[in-house]
């Protein structure tokens, strides 16, 4: 079996087992807390595990359908395998040991398979790196907004979506609209939950990194 095929097989099995782990946590997690990392909020964490495993499954599927995709696309797939693998070690306890190990192995194999394509990868990262980081920050906002209670939480979810939309708005309608959406998306949640330390930190990063990504976008 070739390196990419091995990565695809490991990724598919690991992600599928991850989905199963998430479903188990949602359904019977409260009755087996020592197996799910002693987590109390088994529903939300189980759901997060399912979603992240589905993301990994999508990455593995992409590699299976397009084994000769460009280097940046394969790098993105590797991230799609490795990031959920890392995060879920903190969400679902021992149930993640097997799926996590398989996904890490798959991600590493994909990266190893990209030897010699350094220039192409580095060029793509240079072009879209800040935008990728902004999307990541937007995802943090959506996640923390979903966790926070009441009106403040809603501003987090909506704010995250606006931050994500800012990149597309900048591309279609210009940097000014993109920058305005970044500000409108980032500030309300940060102001309402300023005491949390985390949201002001993320808002500052959104304005700095997202601002740079938006400024580099040309309609």
């Amino acid at each position, binding site marked *: 079996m070739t390196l990419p095929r091995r990565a695809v097989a490991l990724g598919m099995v690991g992600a599928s087992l991850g989905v199963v782990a998430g479903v188990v946590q949602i359904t019977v997690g409260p009755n087996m807390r020592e197996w799910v990392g*002693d987590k109390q909020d088994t529903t939300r964490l189980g759901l997060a595990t399912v979603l992240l495993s589905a993301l990994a499954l999508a990455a593995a599927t992409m590699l299976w359908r397009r084994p000769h995709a460009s280097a940046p696309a394969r790098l993105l797939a590797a991230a799609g395998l490795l990031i959920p693998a890392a995060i879920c070690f903190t969400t679902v306890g021992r149930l993640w040991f097997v799926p996590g190990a398989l996904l890490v192995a798959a991600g590493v194999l994909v990266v190893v398979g990209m030897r010699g394509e350094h220039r192409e990868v580095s060029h793509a990262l240079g072009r879209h790196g800040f935008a990728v*980081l902004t999307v990541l920050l937007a995802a943090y906002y959506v996640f923390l907004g979903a966790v926070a209670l009441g009106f403040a939480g809603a501003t987090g979810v909506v704010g995250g979506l606006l931050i994500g939309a800012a990149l597309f708005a900048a591309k279609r309608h210009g940097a000014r609209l993109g920058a305005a959406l970044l500000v409108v998306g980032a500030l309300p949640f940060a102001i309402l939950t300023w005491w949390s330390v985390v949201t002001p930190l993320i808002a500052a990063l959104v304005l700095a*990194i997202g601002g740079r990504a938006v400024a580099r976008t040309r309609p």
Partner: protein
Amino acid sequence: MRNAEHATTQRVSRRTLLRRVGLGAGTVLVLGAGAVGYRAYDHGVFSVGDGAAYDPWSSGKEHAGTPMAMVAAAVLAANAHNAQAWLFRVSETRIDLFADRARGTGALDPFRREMYVSLGCALENCVLAGPANGFASRVTLLPDPTQPLHAARIDLTRRESPTGDLYEQIPHRHTNRNAYQKGRSVPDAALEAMSGLVGLGDARLVWITAEPERRKMGDLLIEATLAIVADRDQERANNDWFRQDWDELQRKRDGLTIDAAGLSGLVAAVAKLLPAQSDAALDSGWVDGTRDRQVPTAAAFGILAVADSTDNAQRLEGGRLLQRVHLWATKEGISLHHMNQLTERADRERDLGVTPRFGAALRELISGGRLEALSAFRVGYADDAGALSPRRAVESVIL
């Protein structure tokens, strides 16, 4: 010509290098923010008062019309260190209340004074919830002299009777450890009304409102706090009931918490984000809070005094009174914070057989006579309602 080409190449390289450095730094910062964000989630920074540990505050209606509803009200009672040292045996016609010795607070409560006062608080909530669920209660304290852990028996009869004002306050009452509004006193009429809630023959509430006495009481509270943290056994017993870890809090559903410690939102969030604090840091935080926030902003101190503070029946009755006072204060928008440092030190002195410094000071504060201090608290008006404390589910306190 060659020099110009070389300069251009060098300029581009520098720009590329700077971009890569910026992207690398950005990546590190974004991943760092993600880690901090996840820790904030994992330690409940955004979930104050949320989760299974707080469900009992809003799930009282589940057992409406049954004796279990009375137990659901009882578990929301004030109690020392939120140890919840109570157990209930429930039938259709009777509720028996027992002390759970396994949940004692050790050197802080060597003679189980606080445990029985807390049981009295739970008993009062239980009785107050009777009419709302169609029951009339008849209470017998310590029904079996051979079983001191059997704190009370509540015989129930089906009878429609009006629900009292105080019952409505049960889900809203909680200890407020925040700073209170400085310079805003509690009206004399309110203090008198609380004193009027006393139902026990010899018990009375002693109010300390005048500035010199208030300062004296405040100084004693600070000294007692310092004495507790300097006493290894009391310090350990105190910190054993402090829950710093969110998962532990949600699992054990008891103890004092960062959210309910009276800290500002910012300080509480930072405390949750940082690794668990050492005993020394917890001690220092408690002393600072007592000295800088709680004592200087107290509008008045109250001391509940009874004829014999070693008598379990009087402790139980004192607890019932204390709960009524707290519920009445809640109805009037007055914040209340139980401060047991003085009685804890007085009992410790008795336990160790040393000179009763705090015991003597307490006697002096309540002007001698034949009454003994049972419990102390401060009142005032807080800007912030304060946070709820975790509670065990009704099902886990049933025998």
